[in-house]
């Protein structure tokens, strides 16, 4: 897995690049110190990041065979047979479709709001910046599970403080429950994304705006033509994290299962992974996991490339 060049560029290594490869054997200075610095992370990263990914792939290639109906189960190599099952599994693709339609609506809405709030905070139009910054960020301190429990109460027809609305609108019905969950996720993350974008805005030197003002550009024009292009990297970063989060949805729908019968055990891809693993059918669950991870990676990578092409035109 290699990182896209732009991410490397963004990492801004201040070191000179290596000279001609090979040939010159240079002695590495301070090898012991480097080992002390890197080893703890490298060992843990190998054990708990690299190894699980490899092991999931390995498990997804096995099938359970039994001699007779109640015979002893043995794991044998089954090639891609689990993956054939994944591709034939209707509910799994339905759940992928569900999180994709969720993401197509929720991610732009959330990031659009975050961008608008960040630009407002950065403009002279808003007073009490400190208060708003904090008030909008507070929901991020609420864990997804807790936020989902809280909103579950707020949505319910009889417990909610807004019974006038909730008794007439079925937020927990099969039609709306996906968007009810989308609102929970939006509520938690808008302020967090706003802060990331806002801190990118703060890093822009203000002299840039002087010239624009002299040319008679208003606040909107400055925001659209100067600020947004300059903070594109931050917006892309929040976009990638949001896409990953959407495909991996688990906690909120899992909590909503106790509020709404419309949320099934196959509602999102990760719920499928969880319910398949507790059957237990770990080999199929591993195959689901691998396909989901690849889909997540492909989608965030495509998004990165797509936004770069747009930015570099």
């Amino acid at each position, binding site marked *: 897995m*290699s*990182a896209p060049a732009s991410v490397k560029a963004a990492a*801004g*290594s*201040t*070191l000179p690049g290596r000279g001609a490869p090979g040939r010159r054997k240079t002695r590495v200075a*301070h090898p012991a*110190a*480097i080992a*002390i*610095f*890197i080893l*703890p*992370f490298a060992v*843990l*990263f190998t*054990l*708990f*990041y*690299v190894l*699980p*990914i490899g*092991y*999931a792939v390995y498990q997804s290639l096995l099938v359970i065979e039994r001699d007779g109906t109640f015979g002893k189960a043995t794991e044998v190599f089954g090639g891609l047979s689990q993956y054939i099952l994944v591709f034939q599994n209707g509910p799994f693709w339905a759940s992928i479709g569900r999180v994709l339609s969720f993401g197509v609506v929720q991610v732009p809405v959330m990031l659009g*709001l975050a961008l608008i*709030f960040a630009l407002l905070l950065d403009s002279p139009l808003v007073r009490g910046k400190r208060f*708003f910054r904090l*008030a*909008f960020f*507070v*929901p991020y*301190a*609420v*864990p997804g*599970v*807790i936020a989902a*429990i809280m909103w579950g*109460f*707020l949505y319910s027809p009889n417990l909610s*403080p807004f019974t006038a609305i909730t008794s007439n609108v079925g937020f927990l019905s099969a039609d709306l429950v996906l968007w009810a969950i989308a609102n929970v996720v939006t*509520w938690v993350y808008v302020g967090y994304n706003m802060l*990331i974008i806002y*801190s*990118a805005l703060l890093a822009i030197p203000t002299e840039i705006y002087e010239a624009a003002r002299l040319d008679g550009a208003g606040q909107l024009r400055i925001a659209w033509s100067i600020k947004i292009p300059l903070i594109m*990297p*931050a917006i892309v970063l929040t976009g*990638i994290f949001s896409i990953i*989060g959407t495909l991996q949805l688990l906690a909120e729908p*899992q*909590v909503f299962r*106790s509020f709404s019968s419309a949320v099934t055990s196959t509602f999102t891809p*990760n719920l499928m992974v*969880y319910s398949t*693993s507790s059957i237990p059918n*770990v080999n199929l669950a*591993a195959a689901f996991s691998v396909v989901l*991870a690849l889909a*997540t*990676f492909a989608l*965030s990578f495509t998004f990165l490339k797509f936004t770069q092409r747009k930015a570099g035109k």
Partner: protein
Amino acid sequence: MTVMLVFTLYFLVPIWWLFVAGTKSSSQFTSTNPLWFADINLIQNITNLVAYRDGVFLTWMLNSALYAGAGALLATLFAGMTGYALAKYRFPGRELLFNIVLGGVLVPATALALPLFLIFSQVSLTNTFWAVFLPSLVSPFGVYLTRIFAAASVPDELIEAARLDGAGEVRTFFTVSVRLMFPALVTVFLFQFVAIWNNFFLPLIMLRDETLFPVTLGLYAWNSQVNQIPELRGYVLIGALLSIIPLIILFLLLQRFWRSGLGAGSVK
């Protein structure tokens, strides 16, 4: 300005409601104004919650504090050391290591939960403290952030000066460089703390023993039993309220530091 005020309501009213609901006795919960106080019953509610099932709620809070506090501290130390080494030393495989770590940033924690469960089953360590604690010590994003920050804020001359003074590399890191990297380290600590505190899938899939649960998993378990045990509803609400407070306090205490560190992640 109006837009900001309207959305302030959207963000704060649910939390206000939770706070008000937490102060009410169960009999007044549905019969009084949901957004205003009735008879203040907060202390009694907390006492009942803490007493319930031999204080299992306090155990959960302590577990969460330990998983997230100790986990984030160690994760920050390891990530900071690695980021620093990547920024300030030259050794073979440096770029490769950094690229693998960047790939790791794109791997979501939830995608690793099931494979981690399979691995921990192999060594019979599921349903233990370590099954949740150990995987949380890895923060690829922390390596990325501290590398950028160290490259920008720790001058080579300073390291050279420390060498001339006869300080070892590791000692230089802990006495000089850590101070310069402090905003980034606090940011990494906060991010990792929140990530662990909010983590749900890993404990859900790893833990069976109630006494090992973090507070998120505990409240989730109670919430799914509300239909059989109605009294749990009040406990879930007051528990949810109490579980938010530590994070809010932490944000407020460390606000000064993480604001300056947050911008580093998106520098071109």
